[in-house]
């Protein structure tokens, strides 16, 4: 295993009339990584871990992290279509998807709409399915800091990543991202009533990863994903909340790499 850090470049790609910034790094089979509702923090060790084995693409969701806002966009399924367009435009096939939290919902929608297209599907703490007993934590009712903190088991991990008192510029970015999330996932909040019925055709093998202490999306949602996806298994990561790959980058990096590279 190489330990060299990947070189990352950002390319602006035009999709659905919007300029979409796509971060690209590493070499190997293509891996599309879809970020959380809070955006994609720069320089995540998890991205580097993946780039040692794959060509990693991390687009900024339309309207997130300062990327151009599509005023017309109304649903998470719209985002999934935008990414299908992106992959077709780049001529990429045999792609594996890694969806993180909210990005996991987008990945699941993509897999449902192209059930034979993807090599592997990894969902990490994915939104998108309504919990039967619990609730998905509603950021509309809490401050940015409280919401993101709720996604970590270890408060120290939050402090190391964002600072104990995150800078105002980051709060602005979280607010902007939250607004875009409201624009496309306000009601029902953070799930689709139809998605569970559409996942049964997905042919790719799937790995569902969940933090043992996920306080944002109940683990029962992970169990349900693992049930409705025909070739899925659930892996629970200790010492992690919702932002599993930020709290345990090595563990999740290894899980994903082994799962995606296995023949």
């Amino acid at each position, binding site marked *: 295993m190489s330990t060299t850090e990947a070189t990352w470049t950002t390319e602006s790609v035009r999709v659905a009339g919007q300029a979409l910034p796509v971060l690209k790094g590493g070499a190997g089979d293509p891996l599309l990584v879809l970020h959380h509702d809070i955006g994609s923090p720069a320089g995540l060790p998890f991205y580097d871990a993946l780039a040692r084995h794959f060509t990693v693409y991390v687009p900024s969701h339309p309207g997130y992290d300062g990327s151009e806002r599509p005023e017309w966009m109304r649903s998470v399924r719209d985002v999934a279509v935008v990414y299908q367009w992106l992959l077709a435009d780049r001529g990429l096939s045999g792609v594996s998807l890694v969806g993180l939290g909210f990005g996991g919902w987008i990945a699941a929608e993509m897999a449902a709409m192209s059930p034979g297209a993807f090599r592997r599907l990894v969902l990490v703490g994915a939104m998108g399915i309504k919990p039967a007993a619990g609730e998905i934590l509603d950021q509309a009712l809490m401050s*940015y800091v409280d919401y993101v903190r709720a996604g970590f088991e270890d408060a120290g991990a939050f402090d190391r990543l964002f600072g104990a008192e995150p800078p105002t510029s980051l709060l602005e970015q979280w607010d902007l991202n939250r607004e875009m999330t409201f624009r496309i996932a306000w009601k029902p909040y953070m799930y689709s009533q139809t998605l569970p019925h559409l996942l049964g055709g997905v042919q790719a093998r799937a790995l569902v990863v969940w933090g043992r202490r996920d306080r944002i999306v109940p683990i029962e949602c992970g169990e349900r994903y693992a049930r409705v996806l025909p070739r899925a298994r659930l892996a629970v990561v200790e010492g992690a909340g919702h932002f599993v790959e930020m709290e345990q980058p090595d563990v999740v990096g290894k899980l994903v790499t082994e799962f995606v590279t296995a023949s």
Partner: protein
Amino acid sequence: MHLMYFTEQPMSAYPEDAGLDFGATALMFSNRHFDPVAGSRLYNEYLEHYRLAEDVGFDGIMLNEHHNAPFCMQAKCNVFASILAAVTKRVKIVLLGNPLPLADNPVRLAEELAMIDMISGGRLVSGFVRGGGQEQLATGVNPAYNRERFEEAHELIVRAWTDTGPFRWEGTHYQHRVVNPWAIPLQKPHPRVWIPGVLSKETIIWAARQRYPYIALSTAIDATKKIWQLYDSVAAEAGYTGGPENRGYLQRCHVAETEEKAMENARQFMWMQGEFTGLAHPVWSSPSGYFSPSNRRAFVEFAVGRRANPRAAALEDQLRDQQIIAGTPKTVLPKLRRLLEETRPSILGFWASDGFVSSADTMTCIRLLGQEVLPALREMGKELGLASPFEANAPVSIKYAEGPGARRTPQQAALR
């Protein structure tokens, strides 16, 4: 001048300590603290106050609505408007207003308002608001489309009032196969629309473009002057001259027989403990997408406690800035004169009491206002040239060249 009586209809019987303990008096503050026995008493007291306000000479009664909070018991202003349409005879029923984005069916609102207008004999003034941030959360409406929904619902309602049906509506947020309400307003071309606000420039600009009077809600005099500068500049761009008939103001003003009593009761304007819409979590009062993007930086700092709430000044400051006026009729009049001279509104609402002020004291206040304050204000209004939209026969909107007085229908004429 058009002089209105207003109360927030406070649910004063809730335990204040519970609000302080919880840290908020809105949205998630449990309704187990709501006492319907006291609620029933209070609703009926407020109704009695409205009737007294008409008896002592107010020109209008201003109503509003809020949700999930003790500071305002009206969950639907059209309910009280309907009651007043029947039990009052003369006053204008001024709704400030219906929160348009909260409506999933604006045509239904257009029908309700038309009914109120007809039942009241053409006394409706139909103001519209965006609704507070908490209202979006309380009703499950997407805050990110608040302004779009406001503008589209407004357009649809005005069309439902003025265009002959049936027609079809295919909008961004509203789609209707058939718009053909069999209740249309008595007033022609349609009831007057006034737009209240406190914070957002966008709303002032929008109101000025429509030529709708803007009602500044208890802003400090300097801030109010800035509102009129902006309004007038937009009016000039739109091709008309802004004047008193475009300007309204809601004044918190309590009068009593003695200064001491007035000041004691004026303290109740601070009863909600936060800004005047209560003690609130900033994220609830301004969910993402609800406020102007130009305020994003200030807002996020406020949301995490790095910036003070700009709307929660101390009582002493609000008294100094005349956002709150209290005294005997004799001592409040010079202050009201200053307000009229400096900001020149023709529409003036009196928010006369709040919180735990007793019904008897509120009625004394209403009576003193009617007998001793309003007549003096009318004289001042004449002297200063503050003609209300009714007195000036101002057009109801930018779409009309002349006021409705010139084109009164035979039915309306018969009612006067």
